[in-house]
């Protein structure tokens, strides 16, 4: 299972012990602007006041009491519908059907009213129609997984049609003198009744959003759906609920409008109304990307829109311009929001996602003679600070990922680059490959000093990187991939035949038997990798850098790859090979460079060194016997699986974890451990087999039930699954306890604060204040939050997936102590880890997984690194056919 770490390098480093209070300077401004919810609402109110002030001076008849009250009255139905839309926008969805829910509710109201004479029934029916449409929207979106804008667009027409059906296409007259008619014309104490109704609804909505567990969940889902789900949030319910609210609000708004006009019109609203409603919410500061938005802001947005409408009327401007102006307003609001989030150092979710690199360095090991070719690449004293999405140093950071890194590569050499997690291998590769620039130090390619601003520049200089996350376009063919960006053409016309023949030739030279016309996605990872190498060779690469190339290859595929690399070496190409597998380093590389904590810990001739020496240099410490140990007795089995099978499993898995026990799960990347963990907690479905927890069969239980009852899950990828970065420390820590923060579904801020504060103390999380956004915390502290949120109640089973990956030493040991603490309280822990010393040091028992099945079980006493490794490595009988 690969790690998708979008901001790799931000806080993965041991040297972050330098960040003393856990929050870099940029945090302060970010904290202020990032306390996102208050600021835009205040800004909007300000904008409204300014608008009214200007209009009062510039436009006659604007500032009369009648006109202003009129604006407020007109804004009320819009505000109500926009409040409903806000909930949908908050979960990062959109509801295009509200315009036709207007029409539907309108005719339903009048039809029922006319036929039954009861206002109450009419209102209930109309509201019910809106609610039902919203529920239908939500259900289709969640169950059938169609994007919300398609579903609601289709539903727009369906609701429109149903409305036309009911009214046979005509407007229905509403009986006069009904309660509703009186209501909408009423002015208790001079304030239009409509405004009062809108105000009441706004207050109610505010309470739902800010003081209930539903509201908390809405924001959480909007920011990060998967993380919410993995914390036990009932995502489906929240999404359906949001759409239901939107439909209901639209219906309520329609009821009021219909009563004003006095007739039920199936064409009420339409796409224009949809647009207006969205505009009101967006102008009011609600983000289209989810998570951000306030009720107050939306209300003010509605008033702003109606104010503009009023201006257009008063100034006799052509009303058709209104739509155009609305469109412009929405665009401006979005651009402003996007820029504001950028400024706050927050994470926006743009249409594109660049740089999904990750990597664990693999160490290259060579065999045979030392290459005596000349130096083609010389990196000296490279320094690099922790960087952001653009590759630039994070503002105010003192965290150095590369302190003094050196690498010298010769022609015709296979050079391994090894080092621990967080040693800086990935960062160095990125610098060499042009993905990020270095801050200081010298990088010479063929004797020429270079500093690459992009991978394109690096490739032009002859350096190609094969990233671990292969950079292929899966739905394009092999040929298209190989020539992407440098297609052969005659004028604008593609020379397809020639590209095909060149591709075939290149592939066969490398001994790859693949039809270049196949779609990339059809190939196995191994073959895709070979195609990538062929692509690089085709571009006349002289320096080939491979980033953990063997992590998802079978033994046979690895052998083939090494054969290919040796062939390339003999042609004078210099190869850098990042890996974790010492055996491979020893088998294939000529020289090895060890990186530790961003600094060179030696460059050795591989044939003259040993595995132990390499490990010693990587780790620089003795394999510690200073892991904390639990003194609790081990009890009965708490979690038992029988013959569990799931996508990615080879045979049924049967394990058990006992109370008070720490069970380690070792294995190579790609062995299926994370998939297994996800099935255990219910994040993914099992195919067959059972999972039994405390004697109950929970195989059919959905994830939220398992997590609510007795399980905890700390995912591998903490940044995108373990915590929600744009939320505060307090919100993150209380995410699993929404139902316990107050009576019933209510959430009391005082309870929330109390729980969060006590957890911060328990875990020694270094923060200045608990309203800080999680993104400002260091990796170690983020992980403490990711683990800590489960500690509010005693759970029975804790599943940790790579809990200490990329974390500094101090935080690591704190986590170990925490695990022991949990075990001593009777908890059962399943710990997935790729760090063998950690597995050996912490576990009472160890399972080893290999290629989708359990390949061994050891007690603490029986296990050694060698025995574990032997069970982890794939056996020679693995096939490498093209997969489907």
């Amino acid at each position, binding site marked *: 299972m690969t790690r998708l770490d979008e901001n790799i390098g931000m806080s993965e480093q041991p040297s972050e012990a330098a960040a003393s209070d856990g929050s870099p300077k940029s945090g302060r401004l970010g904290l202020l602007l990032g306390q996102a919810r208050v600021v835009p609402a205040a800004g909007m109110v300000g904008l409204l006041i300014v608008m009214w002030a200007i209009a009062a001076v510039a436009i006659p008849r604007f500032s009369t009491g009648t006109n202003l009250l009129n604006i407020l009255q007109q804004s009320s139905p819009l505000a109500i519908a926009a409040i409903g839309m806000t909930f949908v926008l908050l979960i990062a969805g959109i509801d295009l059907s509200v315009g036709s829910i207007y029409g539907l509710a309108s005719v339903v109201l009048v039809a029922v009213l006319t036929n039954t004479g009861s206002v109450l029934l009419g209102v209930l029916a109309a509201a019910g129609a809106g609610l039902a449409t919203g529920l239908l929207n939500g259900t289709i979106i969640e169950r059938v997984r169609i994007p919300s804008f398609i579903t609601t667009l289709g539903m727009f027409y369906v609701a429109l049609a149903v409305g036309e059906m009911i009214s046979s296409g005509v407007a229905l007259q509403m009986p006069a003198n009904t309660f509703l008619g009186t209501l909408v014309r009423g002015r208790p104490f001079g304030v239009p009744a409509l405004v009062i109704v809108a105000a009441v609804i706004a207050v109610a909505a505010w309470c739902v959003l800010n003081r209930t567990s539903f509201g908390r969940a809405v924001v959480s889902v909007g920011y990060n759906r998967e993380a919410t789900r993995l914390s036990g949030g009932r995502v489906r319910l929240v999404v359906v609920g949001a759409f239901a609210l939107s439909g209901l609000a639209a219906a309520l708004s329609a009821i009021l409008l219909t009563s004003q006009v006095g007739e039920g019109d199936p064409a009420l609203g339409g796409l224009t109304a949809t647009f207006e409603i969205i505009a009101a919410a967006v102008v009011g500061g609600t983000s289209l990307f989810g998570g951000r938005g306030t009720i107050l802001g939306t209300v003010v947005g509605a008033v702003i829109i109606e104010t503009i409408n009023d201006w257009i009327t008063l100034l006799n401007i052509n009303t*058709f311009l209104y739509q155009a102006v609305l*469109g412009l307003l929405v665009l401006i609001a979005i651009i402003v929001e996007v820029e504001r989030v950028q400024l706050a150092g927050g994470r926006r979710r743009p249409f594109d996602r660049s740089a999904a690199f990750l990597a664990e360095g693999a160490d290259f090991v060579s065999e045979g003679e030392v290459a005596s070719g000349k130096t083609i690449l010389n990196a000296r004293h490279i320094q690099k600070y922790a960087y952001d999405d653009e590759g630039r140093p994070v503002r105010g950071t003192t965290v150095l990922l590369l302190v003094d890194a050196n690498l010298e590569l010769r022609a015709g050499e296979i050079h391994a680059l090894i080092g621990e997690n967080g040693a800086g291998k990935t960062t160095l590769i990125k610098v060499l490959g042009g993905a990020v620039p270095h801050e200081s130090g010298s990088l010479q390619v063929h004797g020429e000093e270079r500093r690459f601003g992009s991978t394109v520049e690096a490739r032009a200089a002859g350096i190609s990187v094969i990233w671990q996350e292969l950079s292929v376009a899966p739905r394009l063919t092999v040929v298209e991939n190989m020539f992407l960006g440098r297609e052969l053409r005659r004028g604008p016309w593609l020379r397809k035949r020639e590209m095909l023949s060149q591709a075939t030739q290149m592939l066969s030279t490398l001994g790859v038997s693949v039809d270049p016309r196949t779609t990339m996605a059809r190939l196995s990872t191994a073959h895709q990798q070979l195609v990538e190498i062929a692509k690089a060779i085709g571009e006349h690469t002289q320096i080939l850098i491979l980033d953990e190339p063997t992590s998802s290859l079978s033994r046979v595929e690895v052998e083939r790859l090494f054969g290919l690399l040796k062939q390339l070496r003999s042609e004078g190409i210099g190869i850098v090979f990042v890996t974790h597998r010492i055996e491979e380093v020893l088998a294939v590389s000529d020289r090895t460079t060890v990186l530790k904590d961003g600094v060179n810990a030696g460059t050795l001739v591989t044939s003259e060194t040993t595995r132990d020496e390499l490990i010693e240099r990587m780790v620089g410490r003795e394999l510690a016997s200073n892991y904390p140990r639990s003194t609790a007795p081990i009890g009965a089995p708490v979690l038992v699986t029988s013959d569990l099978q799931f996508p990615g499993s080879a045979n049924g898995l049967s394990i058990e974890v006992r109370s008070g026990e720490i069970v380690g799960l070792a294995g190579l990347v790609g062995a299926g451990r994370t998939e297994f963990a996800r099935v255990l907690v219910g994040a993914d479905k099992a195919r067959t087999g059972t999972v039994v927890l405390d004697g109950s069969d929970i195989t059919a239980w959905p994830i939220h039930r398992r997590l609510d009852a007795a399980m905890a899950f700390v995912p591998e990828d903490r940044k995108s699954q373990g915590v929600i970065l744009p939320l505060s420390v307090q919100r993150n820590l209380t995410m699993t306890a929404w139902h316990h923060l107050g009576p019933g579904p209510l959430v009391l801020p005082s309870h929330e604060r109390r729980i969060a504060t006590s957890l911060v103390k328990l875990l020694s999380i270094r923060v200045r204040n608990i309203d800080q956004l999680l993104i400002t915390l260091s990796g170690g502290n983020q992980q403490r939050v990711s683990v800590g949120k489960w500690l509010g109640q005693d759970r029975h089973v804790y599943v940790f997936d790579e809990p200490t990956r990329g974390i500094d030493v101090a935080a690591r040991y704190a986590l170990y102590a925490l695990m022991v603490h949990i075990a001593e309280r009777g908890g059962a822990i399943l710990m997935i880890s790729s760090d063998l010393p950690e597995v050996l040091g912490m576990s009472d028992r160890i399972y080893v997984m290999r290629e989708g099945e359990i390949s061994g079980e050891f007690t603490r006493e029986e296990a050694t690194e060698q025995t574990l490794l032997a069970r982890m490595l794939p056996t020679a009988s693995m096939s490498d056919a093209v997969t489907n």
Partner: protein
Amino acid sequence: MKSKVTDLLLARRAARPLGPIVLIAVAVFLIGLWVPHFATFGNLIQILIQASFTAVVAFGMTLVIVTGGIDLSVGGVISLVGVVEADLFLHDIPWPVAVLAGLATGAASGTVSGLVVGRLKLPPFIATFGTFGVTAGLALYLAPPISETISYPGALASLGSGSFVSIPYLVFAAFLVLVVVEVLYGMTHWGVWLRATGDALPVARLRSVPVPRVLCLAYIVSGLCAAIAGTLLAAYLTSPNPEQGGPYTLWAIAACVIGGVDLSGARGKLWAAGLGAVFLAAIQNALALEEVQPFYSDMVTGLLIIVAVVVATYAPLIRKELMTALGRIRLKAAS
């Protein structure tokens, strides 16, 4: 015989084009049996005419969808272009100039959409929803008053109503557009770049594909196609209707989806989108013949999109099951 059929279905390459063709043939056949007057030559021509407008828009829309985006503004462009040309005819501007102005309008709208999506990086449906608002609003604003009668220049009027060997010029026009766009899409590097952008944007960037320019191109082509459709539609209707483009957004998306264009990008055949347009027009025609109310038609279109997306999502799974089943039958037959 059975083995031939299963062979055909199992041959993945062959299976792909079959989908839309089979669908249309079956649908037309069934409807022809059911609905009187449907299967007459005159009616079928009528269907093709209706399909032509949608198809032209769908060709441009396909390019946008292939980049992983969507263009909600086409309806507004169709309306606006019709209005712009009508206004120019009112002032006795020669028709080639007016048509060029119309096309330029479409291209301009596409450029705006493309820049907003490509440079400002806004989500396409927001950006094009905004462009839709602007173009639709402008169309209403600039529409010539109803009192003025516009005489459409002879050339355009005959384009809209004339035919060659019984096939209307409009249909030929649609084919011409198909050929031109297909040349761009299938035979130039732009086509590869469009698909690469929709398939794996970061990878395309890495390989120095000029993504903003590619996105711009997609939306400009879509705008131009919408402009052509608007011109053709106005020539056909010969009376300016500032809301003529309204339903075409949904219809074009429906045609693409039915034709197998993948909404998540990178996959789509232009001719299949064209066939999707024909299918849609056939359904709408049949409903009209049965004197079903117009709003039912819209509802059906909405449902068709949902169904098509569902089918497209689950089809690979179903096909897998089907193939394993067929494979088993084959084995059994062989043994």
